[in-house]
């Protein structure tokens, strides 16, 4: 992959002109075909390098990669050990030294270089014709290679290893001033020559060919097909897009190809169990569909611990995705309710500012109270604070608990007025009124008069509302009758208590007002 990336950098981004193009390509090949280093370490490390079996292979590879200085050093070693070929080595070394190349700081123009190179080429040719190297086949091969002789190059297939190396070497020794536009012609012919019709091009070859043809879209397309995930194409396309090299295609998905690929990649990240956090950042950089995609994906991350949920919620809150916050909190609150963690459920619904759910949880609390006669989770209800205002039911719960507390502290008058206000202010659910009235009973039965006459009238009104509004039941069965009995008894007791209290209140108030 790095191979493709580097090639794209050279061709598309640096847009090297004719001269430096070859140098870049040479660097590219040297970087990616690295057996040379280990081989040279091998050979140089041995006692007698020039007698090493891979010596000539090494020298050949060095020449193929255009590393002529190193090749010359090798040759001088050979010259030292075998005097017979010393002369030839020196000549060849000279040729190597005099090969004109475009060095970065050089101010030669291309035509000057061409001329010099042509000159040098002819000199090499002359040496070959003269038969200077005939006694040493190795040196002769080297000379032929330096002349760019295709047959000689093809013989070195094994050392070259692949067609793009062949291409670069060929260009180096036959067309060093190749223009980018002509690159693909040479590439195609190199590929054909190298493969020689034996094997068909592999996907990598197709990708590189497309690159040489400067067809960016083809490159991306081939990469998408060949590689197993979107990582490479997404980043490559993003880079090219930032260099303004991609014309915008109108795709159905995303504003352009870059966005499409980024979306694909980010979606893939979200499917991974832990890389979803990275996906978020990618979605942020997709201007058109990024936010929507993120909204959809983030709701579907599996949340198995609260810690993970908090991280996800933070991401949503940072981007003001209030809908998602609400839905995630609702899911968590629902899970908590199912596990009977009412405190957690309430704190999640408070965070989501979800009044409906808070009402649900409060109803559960109240139901628990009715069933068991006492509150569970007092620590939560006692300390609701301003969150109490979130839902009416919640407020009622808090106030009701306060009533119990006041009663426990024997502050009866305060408790009484609180109880009354709970009923008259309509925040108490109707189903609960009976319980509230029953709670009022002990207050009514106290020795001292707690409810004033006004308050007693209010209580009576509530009781009448309650009994009047009760719907006519269907067929009474035994249980129903029993319930009805209990109900009637309660109502009667209440009426009695209220009446007695009213009497005492009137008397007390009357006597106070009197003289």
């Amino acid at each position: 992959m790095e191979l493709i990336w580097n090639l794209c950098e050279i061709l598309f981004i640096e847009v090297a002109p004719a001269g430096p193009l070859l140098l870049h390509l040479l660097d590219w090949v040297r970087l990616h075909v690295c057996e040379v280093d280990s081989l040279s370490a091998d050979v140089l490390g041995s006692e007698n390098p020039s007698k090493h079996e891979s010596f000539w292979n090494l020298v050949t590879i060095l020449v193929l990669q255009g590393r002529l200085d190193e090749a010359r050093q090798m040759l001088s070693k050979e010259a030292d050990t075998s005097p017979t070929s010393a002369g030839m080595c020196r000549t060849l070394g000279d040729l190597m030294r005099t090969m004109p190349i475009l060095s970065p700081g050089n101010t030669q123009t291309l035509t000057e270089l061409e001329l010099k190179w042509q000159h040098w080429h002819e000199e090499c040719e002359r040496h070959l014709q003269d038969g200077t190297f005939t006694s040493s086949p190795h040196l002769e091969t080297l000379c032929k290679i330096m002349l760019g002789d295709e047959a000689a190059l093809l013989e070195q297939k094994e050392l070259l290893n692949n067609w793009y190396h062949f291409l670069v070497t060929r260009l180096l020794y036959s067309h060093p001033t190749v223009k980018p536009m002509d690159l693909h012609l040479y590439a195609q012919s190199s590929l054909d020559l190298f493969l020689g019709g034996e094997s068909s091009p592999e996907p990598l070859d197709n990708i590189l060919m497309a690159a040489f043809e400067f067809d960016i879209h083809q490159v991306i397309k081939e990469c998408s097909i060949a590689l197993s995930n979107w990582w490479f194409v997404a980043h490559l396309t993003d880079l090219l897009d930032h260099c303004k090299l991609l014309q915008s295609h109108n795709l159905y998905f995303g504003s352009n190809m870059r966005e499409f690929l980024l979306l694909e990649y980010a979606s893939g990240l979200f499917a991974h169990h832990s890389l979803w956090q990275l996906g978020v950042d990618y979605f942020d950089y997709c201007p058109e569909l990024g936010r929507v995609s993120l909204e959809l994906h983030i709701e579907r991350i599996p949340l198995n611990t609260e810690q993970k949920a908090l991280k996800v919620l933070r991401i949503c809150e940072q981007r003001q995705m209030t809908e998602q916050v609400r839905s995630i909190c609702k899911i968590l609150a629902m899970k908590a309710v199912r596990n009977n963690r009412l405190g957690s459920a309430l704190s999640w619904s408070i965070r989501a500012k979800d009044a409906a759910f808070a009402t649900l949880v409060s109803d559960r609390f109240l139901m628990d109270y009715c069933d068991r006669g006492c509150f569970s989770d007092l620590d939560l209800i006692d300390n609701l604070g301003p969150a109490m205002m979130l839902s009416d039911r919640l407020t009622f719960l808090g106030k009701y608990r306060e009533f119990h507390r006041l009663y426990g502290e024997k502050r009866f008058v305060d408790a009484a007025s609180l109880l009354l206000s709970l009923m008259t202010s309509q925040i108490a659910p109707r189903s609960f009124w009976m319980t509230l009235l029953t709670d009022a009973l002990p207050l009514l039965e106290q020795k001292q008069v707690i409810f004033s006459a006004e308050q007693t009238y209010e209580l009576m009104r509530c009781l009448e509302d309650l009994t009047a509004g009760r719907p006519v039941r269907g067929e009474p069965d035994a249980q129903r009758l029993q319930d009805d009995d209990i109900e009637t008894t309660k109502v009667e007791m209440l009426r009695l208590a209220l009446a007695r209290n009213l009497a005492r209140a009137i008397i007390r108030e009357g006597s106070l007002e009197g003289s």
Partner: protein
Amino acid sequence: MGEIYAKFVSQKISKTRWRPVPPGSLQTAETFATGSWDNEENYVSLWSIGDFGNLDSDGGFEGDHQLLCDIRHHGDVMDLQFFDQERIVAASSTGCVTIFLHHPNNQTLSVNQQWTTAHYHTGPGSPSYSSAPCTGIVCDNPEIVTVGEDGRINLFRADHKEAVRTINNADSSTLHAVTFLRTPEILTVNSIGQLKIWDFRQQGNEPSQILSLTGDRVPLHCVDRHPSQQHVVATGGQDGMLSIWDVRQGTMPVSLLKAHEAETNLHRNKLLRSYLLVWEVHFHPSNPDHLFTCSEDGSLWHWDASTDVPEKSSLFHQGGRTSTFLSHSISNQANVQQSLISSWLSTDTTKDRIEITSLLPSRTLSVNSLDVLGPCLVCGTDAEAIYVTRQLFV
């Protein structure tokens, strides 16, 4: 602070802990344990920053931390503590508490003991068994206290199969962290912003004391006790607030310090109040005037309340409600002897200043955990990196 080494480890780190050095020894911290989370296979690993024989020109040790050994762990590692030199206790998101034993001779970890149903919503007996994540552990050889999302507190003893004591439904919301106050007393923090003190000597299931902030019920995520003054406790909250409490006095925190500020929104230009959870807070065990916090916004703060620093810039931020609390705290301090006031309790904007430094070079994803021992600090992040420094006070 001196150099900090980073290493990318291909797993999101949820907890990092130094192995304690034997008391009285002159060694510095050399080994630390990490736990990972959110992977299909999570690991508890041991790392060493010890001597590899590479000395640089100053005679210090170079190179970053190396993995000694690791072992698979089921579920996310929610908390990690060293029980003693050889044993590590890990809390799992499956509700299981495990003790791992380290064998130094062949550098392996093995499971020593496991309580698989330490935390659950509906019990193992019923058909609809559902486990709950265990969120916090604290150890005091031989006892281990664990708390979880099920609001349960367990007291385990190593080598005992069953829990010694269990307080069911200790809290109606999630318990996030626990610490020892004095040995039979523990303190827990929960997701409705309350600190509760429990005394194991008492038989009931009620806390002996409850403290909370008035106002918003901000969930508290971490707690740490002052190393020498056992009544001073620091907590980190979900809104980036660091609070210092004195549990003997009153039910309100002594000081509120806000460091992990809200940040600007990506898409718009106004300040957005986002929750910047403080994941961990630690007092330095030998220099308790120094406090460290790490948070979801990827920063790690060093709070320096020592009064012997001559030049200090006033970087002390306080939240909006503090004026009330300051006066509250000052009136409370009136009865306390001057010598007992630690620098954390007597914070006053005009006199004492707290210097706050950010320790990590660049902001990354969330820093989930940190630990300090001597001059060494280790922290782990969601960006799959572990940072170690051995020169904290340079």
